[in-house]
């Protein structure tokens, strides 16, 4: 017995020296994951700028950020959902439904302040998100199925409330359209709202107990439950937040494009999920950072904006975006393997 204990103790001294001399490349990359993404964004920007000098002008950047703001807002909520090992396919439909209800309300009552419309949309979204959250947390339905079903339901409601009609720009009061085009402190409202949400989310996720519990539930639901976290409540909360953000995004979307239709943002959930995955949020749960999600959204925004600027045919964009997403996901997986192997090596010692 003693002999065996001794021999393993002997191994302790030798192995780390070897491990220290060979720091895995994977670990290095993983430590600077966001830096890598940032570097990729910078390289991409420089490349595009060389091809088309109008890319990095103030106007274009402002334009690009305005277009990315809604994606970014949704990506924050989606990150929370994915961190809990879930997925939400219903957000495009929630966005359409709340946008439609808000648009109908401002059309009927043009004197309503736009802020009220924003709150109304958020409330509708909260209601939808609560319903989805109930199905996932209390009824125990897999998120992908629950949100798939509710996606149909919400999309159907959107058509029913609108009677299949569009609400177009001339029906909406100017004050409502100004919501997306106006500025606060010299910044476009959409960007301003997105920044506010990012700051709030950063504080929530990193500096509150509930925020940390979301990660706990995501990394290990069983041990989270054993350590006294009410996993049901956390799940419910996450989907409710996602719903509210989609509701708010719906109002902003309708205000920005000045039209509300039954098929608004259909399929948009996939872009949002892609932004999260690009930003390093792991579908396996428990992993995801606000900074990563920002960069992921910005990267998608740049791709949307820059590809037309360098004369890439619009028909090639889908394929290019898909390939970049797949590459990012696969590279991420390979890097993570390196990290895990490294951890394993350390633990054996």
């Amino acid at each position, binding site marked *: 017995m003693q002999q065996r204990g001794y021999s393993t103790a002997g191994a302790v001294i030798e192995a780390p020296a070897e491990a220290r001399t060979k720091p895995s490349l994977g670990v290095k990359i993983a430590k600077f994951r966001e830096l890598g993404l940032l570097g990729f964004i910078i390289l991409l920007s420089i490349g595009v700028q060389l091809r088309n000098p109008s890319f990095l002008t103030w106007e274009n950047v402002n334009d690009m950020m305005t277009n990315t703001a809604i994606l970014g807002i949704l990506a924050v909520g989606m990150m929370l959902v994915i961190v809990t090992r879930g997925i939400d396919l219903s957000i495009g439909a929630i966005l359409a439904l709340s946008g439609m209800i808000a648009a109908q309300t401002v059309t009927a009552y043009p004197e309503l302040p736009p802020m009220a419309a924003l709150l109304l949309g958020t409330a509708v979204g909260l209601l939808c998100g609560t319903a989805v959250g109930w199905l996932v947390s209390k009824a*125990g339905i897999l998120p992908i199925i629950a949100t*798939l079903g509710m996606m149909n339901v919400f999309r*159907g409601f959107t058509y029913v409330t609108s009677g299949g009609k569009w609400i177009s720009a001339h029906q909406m009061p100017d004050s409502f359209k100004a919501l997306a085009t106006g500025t606060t402190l010299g910044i476009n409202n959409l960007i301003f709202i997105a920044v506010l949400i990012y700051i709030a989310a950063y504080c929530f996720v990193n500096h509150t107990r509930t925020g940390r519990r979301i990660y706990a539930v995501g990394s290990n639901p069983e041990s989270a439950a054993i350590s006294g976290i009410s996993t049901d409540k956390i799940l419910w909360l996450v989907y409710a937040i996602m719903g509210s953000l989609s509701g708010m995004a719906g109002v902003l979307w309708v205000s920005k494009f000045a039209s509300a239709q039954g098929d608004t943002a259909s399929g948009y959930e*996939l872009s949002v999920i892609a932004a999260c995955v690009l930003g390093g949020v792991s579908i396996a749960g428990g992993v995801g950072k606000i900074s990563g999600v920002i960069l992921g959204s910005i990267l998608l925004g740049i791709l949307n904006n820059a590809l037309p600027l360098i004369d890439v045919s619009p028909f090639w964009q*889908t394929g290019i975006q898909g390939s970049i*997403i797949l590459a990012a996901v696969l590279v991420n997986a390979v890097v993570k393997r390196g990290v895990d192997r490294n951890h394993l090596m350390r633990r054996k010692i």
Partner: protein
Amino acid sequence: MQPRMITNKLEFSFKRFFLQWEWMLVVLLLAVIVMNVNLSEYFWDYANLRDATMGFLDKAFIVLPMVFVILLADIDISVASIVALSSVIMADLYTMGVPMPLAMIICLAVGTLCGWVNGMLIVKFKELSSVIITLATMIIYRGIAYMILEDQAAGSFPDWFSFLGWGYVGSIPFILIAFILFAVLFGVLLHKTVFGRQLYAIGNNGTAARFSGVKVDRIKIIVFTLAGLMAAVTALFLTSRMGSTRPNVATGYELDVIAMVVLGGISTSGGKGRMIGAIIAVFLIGFLRYGLGLVNVQAQVLLIIIGLLLIFAVAVPQLKRAKLPAKKM
């Protein structure tokens, strides 16, 4: 000495037999038919019924392999994009002068290849869930379809090609015969072969299956390849029905197909469900759409109904399971 026999079959009990989800589906299907007959006198018309069946059966071909995929506790959301890509390539080759039979074979080959790529990626990157991989390939396949045809439509196929989607053998639609053949084939494969038993084993416990000698990786690749192949079969029938194709065909099919499979009682956590359930679900949703369409119920209301039906289908077994332990005590 007589070896001890361990039966793997439970004793037959009427109660258990009729409490199965498939019977629930049959009851639902009958309810839908009765409702439709009461709503519209045109429903129970053979010609109408026959033509409606031809209308919704195209995507049913993907339902069959999707049952396998979901039994493995995986999911494949790229199938609709595979339909689009293989259909677009077939049409493009034909307009470039490739003879139609060859173009059709290439269509099937493209689908198979796409499915195989999905399978390989899923097997090689086990830490990534199939949702993410097929999400990415879904965007890529659709993207390639757009690269090939841009916003054009391609078509003007030879006349005989329309037989696939519109033809009859006697008075039975060809597509129905093809579907029944494939359904029997997939049903036998699932319930009567070693391969099928291994699917259940993997779905119930992948690790245990691997340790007991099941070649998990190989089976996963086969299943995803089958999904690609059947998506290409759907592409053939769909293209034949429409007479031309565009890169945006079959959008949203993946969700319809998954909804049918889940409604058919195949559990998304893997290892549970039977082929017959999914087949009944195909006809259930198809007749529901057709019947309510006859009486001018909006397609949008149908969306709500199907969404609720889907959630109901998943929630009921879940609630039953939650109550079961209480009953035992």
